[in-house]
């Protein structure tokens, strides 16, 4: 029966495809779209990301929904797995900052781009979308989208349309990192919002962006179906698939079972212990380094044992990262700093983060500690959490490693949300309860999120996320230098100096970088896993469909 239905569907689909092909060739005279089957994705998210524009469900939401249906002025080059991802023109063909007034940015918009509903993308739409998240008096202001987007563009002071294809954005202070920030802000269709009765609740039932995918079905909590936007402005990025189905499957075992039983073709974040059996069964495991770091963030308040650089360096030398990698089934990159060595921002630190127990013991002895006279530290960790990899196993290994050199670690295990709440509150907050470090994995998509926000003394919690109360005027100068350097090549040099300062002073316990594992059926073709949280799903196809 199933096979019969399947055959009928295939016959019907073939018929529809043939008709479409004839129509395309005969009437439009255009190249037919290379349709490539249906891809069913089991996401690790617990809900279907909201198709409103500034979506939820973290980076996974933006990966599958946000950047599929919508686009920003600035995009990411996700076409290669071998080189770090860089910014590229998106809905803006170019941008520049005023040479005399470094707060004044001009974005030239791509002409002829249309939203899925057919309305034209113009400078007015950009202003409308910025109002959506920044102007509480605007009719289209949306608390949910503002919550997701406003914090990404903290330096916007004003914005206006110069003409139909030019937008001017003024920042509160010179900020060379502004293009990274604006890359987060995606454009929803004002016309579609109007058609939806000026309601975001209605808009999500039939959303409209400019992205390469269009939403065809949306069932909250269950599934979303995306189909190609064949009128997409970049012909090279019109999706090859007929359809992409997104399913929220938060339970990792359920995701593995769904893949193995053929219910889905692609699963996000397979558990490490399932990898050998998945490989044996012929499934493909895809992974690549991406901007993520799993560190211990040290408290630097008065009395913290991590104030002693010898102790910090010793701890960094005591971690058996290769052993940890083996424990995780190979799914991590051994950290040598806050960013991977392959990053343009790594620089050339003099302190080499490595596994050297003898040197670690020597440093600890110099600091007055040994295995018999250990230093006591308390570390906040979580049993799970977004981006936290396998925190219990990893921390237990660290505990063993540090015990070897005379650092006795007591864990304060907290729920992930509780850990985050303390991270925002800072090391001096009562909820820290005497802990000397916290273990939150960090998103490091741009210089600010990767390096600047953690140690800038002007961002000490709760103003920002300098949890440890670290203060270093030299480091602050480097941070200002990055913001004030508008020449990309020169800016990279300053970022490298900042990273070298991170490593040479062992400012964190650098442990691991995640490699974003995903498992997929061998039928999935064309996927190039970029070194990023976001991925381009347009080249993917399903073999044999």
């Amino acid at each position, binding site marked *: 029966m199933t096979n019969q239905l399947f055959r009928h569907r295939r016959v019907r689909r073939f018929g529809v495809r043939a008709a479409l092909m004839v129509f395309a060739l005969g009437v439009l005279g255009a190249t037919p779209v290379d349709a490539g089957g249906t891809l069913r994705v089991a996401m690790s998210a617990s*809900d279907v990301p909201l198709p409103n524009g500034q979506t939820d469900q973290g980076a996974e939401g933006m990966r599958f929904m946000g950047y599929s249906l919508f686009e920003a002025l600035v995009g990411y080059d996700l076409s290669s797995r071998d080189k770090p991802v860089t910014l590229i023109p998106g809905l803006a063909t170019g941008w520049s900052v005023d040479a005399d007034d470094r707060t004044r940015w001009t974005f030239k918009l791509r002409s002829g781009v249309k939203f899925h509903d057919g309305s034209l993308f113009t400078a007015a739409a950009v202003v409308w979308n910025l109002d959506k998240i920044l102007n509480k008096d605007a009719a289209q202001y949306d608390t949910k989208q503002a919550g997701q987007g406003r*914090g990404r563009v903290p330096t916007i002071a004003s914005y206006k349309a110069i003409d139909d294809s030019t937008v001017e954005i003024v920042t509160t202070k010179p900020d060379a990192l502004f293009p990274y920030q604006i890359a987060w802000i995606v454009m929803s269709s004002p016309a579609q919002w109007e058609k939806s009765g000026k309601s975001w609740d209605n808009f999500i039932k039939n959303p409209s962006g400019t992205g390469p995918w269009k939403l065809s079905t949306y069932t909250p*909590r269950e599934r979303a179906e995306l189909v190609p936007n064949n009128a997409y402005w970049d012909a090279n990025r019109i999706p090859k698939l007929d359809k992409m189905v997104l399913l929220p499957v938060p339970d990792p075992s*359920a995701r593995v079972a769904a893949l193995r*039983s053929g219910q889905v073709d692609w699963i996000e974040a397979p558990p490490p212990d399932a990898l050998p059996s998945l490989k044996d069964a012929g499934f493909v495991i895809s992974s690549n380094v991406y901007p993520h770091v799993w560190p211990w963030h040290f408290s630097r308040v008065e009395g913290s044992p991590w104030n002693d650089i010898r102790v910090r360096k010793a701890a960094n030398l005591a971690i058996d990262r290769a052993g940890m990698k083996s424990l995780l089934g190979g799914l991590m990159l051994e950290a040598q700093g806050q960013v991977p060595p392959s990053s343009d921002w790594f620089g050339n630190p003099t302190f080499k983060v490595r596994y050297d127990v003898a040197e670690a013991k020597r440093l600890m002895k110099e600091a007055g500690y040994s295995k018999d006279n250990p230093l006591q530290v308390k570390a906040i960790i979580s049993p799970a959490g977004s981006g936290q990899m396998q925190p219990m196993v990893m921390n237990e290994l660290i505990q063993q490693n540090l015990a070897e050199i005379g650092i006795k670690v007591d864990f304060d295990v907290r729920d992930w949300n509780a850990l985050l*709440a303390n991270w925002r509150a800072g090391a001096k907050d009562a909820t820290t309860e005497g802990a000397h470090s916290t273990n939150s994995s960090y*998103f490091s998509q741009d210089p600010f999120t990767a390096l600047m926000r953690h140690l800038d003394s002007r961002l000490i919690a709760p103003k920002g996320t300098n949890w440890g109360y670290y203060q270093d005027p030299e480091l602050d100068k480097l941070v200002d230098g990055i913001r004030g350097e508008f020449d990309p090549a020169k800016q990279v040099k300053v970022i490298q100096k900042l990273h070298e300062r991170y490593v040479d002073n062992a400012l964190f316990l650098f442990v691991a970088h995640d490699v974003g594992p995903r498992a997929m059926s061998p039928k999935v073709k064309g996927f190039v896993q970029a070194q990023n949280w976001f991925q381009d799903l347009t080249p993917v196809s399903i073999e044999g469909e």
Partner: protein
Amino acid sequence: MFEYLAKRLLYAVPICITVSALCFSLVYLAPGDPLSAVLPADASQEIIDDVKAQYGLDKPVYVQYALWLGRAVTGDLGTSIGSGRPVAEEIGQAIVNSLILAAFASVVGFTIGSALGMIAGYHSGSTTDKMVSAIAISGVSVPHYWLGIVLVVIFSVKLNWLPAMGAGAGGSQAWQWDWEHMRFMILPAITLAAIPTGIITRSVRALVADTLSKEFVTALRAKGLTERTIFVHVVKNSAPTALSVVGVQLGYLMAGSILVETVFSWPGTGLLLNTAIFQRDIPLLQGTILVLALFFVGLNLLVDALQPLLDPRISRS
């Protein structure tokens, strides 16, 4: 009879108020911030405070409770922080899916449980009784989560007979009572039915064995009634207690399916609760717990109302 029902209904009022207060306040004991899951991790305090105010989370807890209760009695359970949709709408869809699953699991659990209980009760002390008891204890003891995974490994991964997750190819909105859709509920329903089957088997076995040892059964046999007629009497005498067990188990099937629905990604109230817990979606959590608790109270009321029909002694007492 009317007085009996009125009393029961009256007793339900303080229970409902207590349940609402408990489910409102208990979620605040959990650590973490309800907005952590919906805002970026590095959202500024200003944005957090702003969103808190939008959801009314900046007010004292007792004020929040009073406002929530005031709205809840009109059927407005607030808006989900995670999805932005009305909680009542979210629960309405999920409860239908859970009812579908619970109904199927009930049929499996109650039929098998009653049959096995009867057999064991009639053969009390025999090898059959011991075997049935062993099955029943296994059903009660085996963790849902583990059983679900084992069934998936066998029937989905190895044999590829049944789907491992979901509620059908088009999701629950395209649900139909045909094989293409019902096959999706077989594994979760069997998993869900394991514990009720064990409990019902044991309860029915004890009731039947107890009833069979009563003097009136000896009297019926002495009067020469057929075993078939005696069986009817045994069922009649065991039914009221069995019904209360069944009622509790039906409530359990609705509310106790968090792990099963999560393992099988079945879009019911269990999965909704799980999502709400992990997202710290307080309005959704409070609303779902309240609705399930009220469902439980309503079910107990229904059982209380049905019991006197089966056993008039209850209303007389």
